[in-house]
């Protein structure tokens, strides 16, 4: 697929790749076990992963791992996740992006506005899931009013979180070819960078002009 002499632009270093896939694995596990507890119709997911009693013990821990990974991501990425003027225009032209009308879009930096929105929505839902999850984890120590609120808010936050991740998985696999390689192997080719992230590409080119 790639020629040995092709130009490679580093996109995600090993630290970012590890933190992403740790988050992905813990999220996948928390989702399957959470869905099992969410609906009796999906209880078989929990049975496959060791049974209801087992997943009641492990689900909170997978949530803790995920929340820690979101914290690591926050430290690494938050500074670059603010929306600039181009991003704000970009968001109003989401339909152009969805219909491949890229000519109508302002140029994106290292992350486009959609990726930035995913980042902030994950930060928000993870905070909500973590807070309500701690309440549900230790019911015998928590006041009933908090437990009652958490029973409804935890799955509500999870619905938002899982939905945005479903879109994320689609974008990272089928919708944008080669983005999976960026997260698995860490690099992209110039053509990809120039098309998807022009401003970021220009920065790279400026620093690599020899």
């Amino acid at each position: 697929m790639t020629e040995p002499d092709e130009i490679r632009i580093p996109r995600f270093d090993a630290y970012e790749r590890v933190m992403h896939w740790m988050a992905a694995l813990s999220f996948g596990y928390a989702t399957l076990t959470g869905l099992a507890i969410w609906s009796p119709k999906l209880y078989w997911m929990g049975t496959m992963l060791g049974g209801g009693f087992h997943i009641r013990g492990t689900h909170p821990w997978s949530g803790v791992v995920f929340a820690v990974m979101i914290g690591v991501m926050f430290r690494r990425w938050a500074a670059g996740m603010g929306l600039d003027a181009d991003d704000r225009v970009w968001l109003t032209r989401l339909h152009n992006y969805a219909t491949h009308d890229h000519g109508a879009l302002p140029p994106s930096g290292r992350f486009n506005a959609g990726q930035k929105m995913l980042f902030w929505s994950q930060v928000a839902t993870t905070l909500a899931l973590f807070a309500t999850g701690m309440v549900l984890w230790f019911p015998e120590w928590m006041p009933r009013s908090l437990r009652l609120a958490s029973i409804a808010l935890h799955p509500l936050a999870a619905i938002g979180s899982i939905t945005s991740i479903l879109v994320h998985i689609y974008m990272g696999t089928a919708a944008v070819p080669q983005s999976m390689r960026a997260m698995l192997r860490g690099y992209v080719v110039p053509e990809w960078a120039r098309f998807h992230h022009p401003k970021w590409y220009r920065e790279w080119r400026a620093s690599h002009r020899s």
Partner: protein
Amino acid sequence: MTVAKLIDTTLCIGCKACEVACQEWNDQEYTLGTFGGTYQTMPDLAHNFWNLIKFNEMERDGGTSWLMSKYQCMHCAEAGCLAACPAPGAIVARPNGTIDFVQDNCIGCGYCITGCPFDVPRLSPTTKKVYKCSLCSDRTAVGLEPACIKTCPTNCLTFGERDELVRIAEARSTELKADGFPDAGVYNPQGVGGTNVLYVLKHASEPEQYGLPKDPHIPLSVSLWKGPMKWLGTLMFWGTILGTFLHFVIYGPQDPSKHGHPEKEDEPRDRA
């Protein structure tokens, strides 16, 4: 046939024989209680203590009135614990109206503790499962009455067909009213569809004095979670899966060679 337990609190002498019978029949380990300045054996229910006679003190007409109540599972027609339970088969509503916990299927999440408007289920710190009064379902299944009923020396406790017990309870409260307790009545809260543990109370308009909630019902957040939230989630998940799949079918992947824009081709290609 729905069975029920009738507790005529006006006949309770606080002997606590029912507590002992419950512990004996259900083979519960005895735990040393704490002294809280009352005649109560324990301050609260526990995972291995399902039936507590509460000695409620009430100030009335310049004197102290002692209101006994039997704190235990109410076996609701619409049970909050059952509504909140996520584990299939862990909480079972038996055909005779008994709400039974099946510990083999319990995952120990504690949702039933939150769902119960009477604050009855208790989590065991050792087995990490939840326990409560079973209405002695292992006795009633073979035609015996629950252990607490069997042992009660004053006939304060009666077991039998629910409709019949409701009639007895009504008759008893009429009797009490005639005897100078105008506020006497039956505690059979309709917010949970009625309970299969019925009380005759001297002060029926103030059940809180007995430690009983005035208007118990299945909590709103539990109903939301088990109802509209399921539809919302199903819609969001399948909608997103279908939406992204159809997007791919209609538009295909993003392709720099096809979707590029000539007016922005001012960037020189690196390979050139």
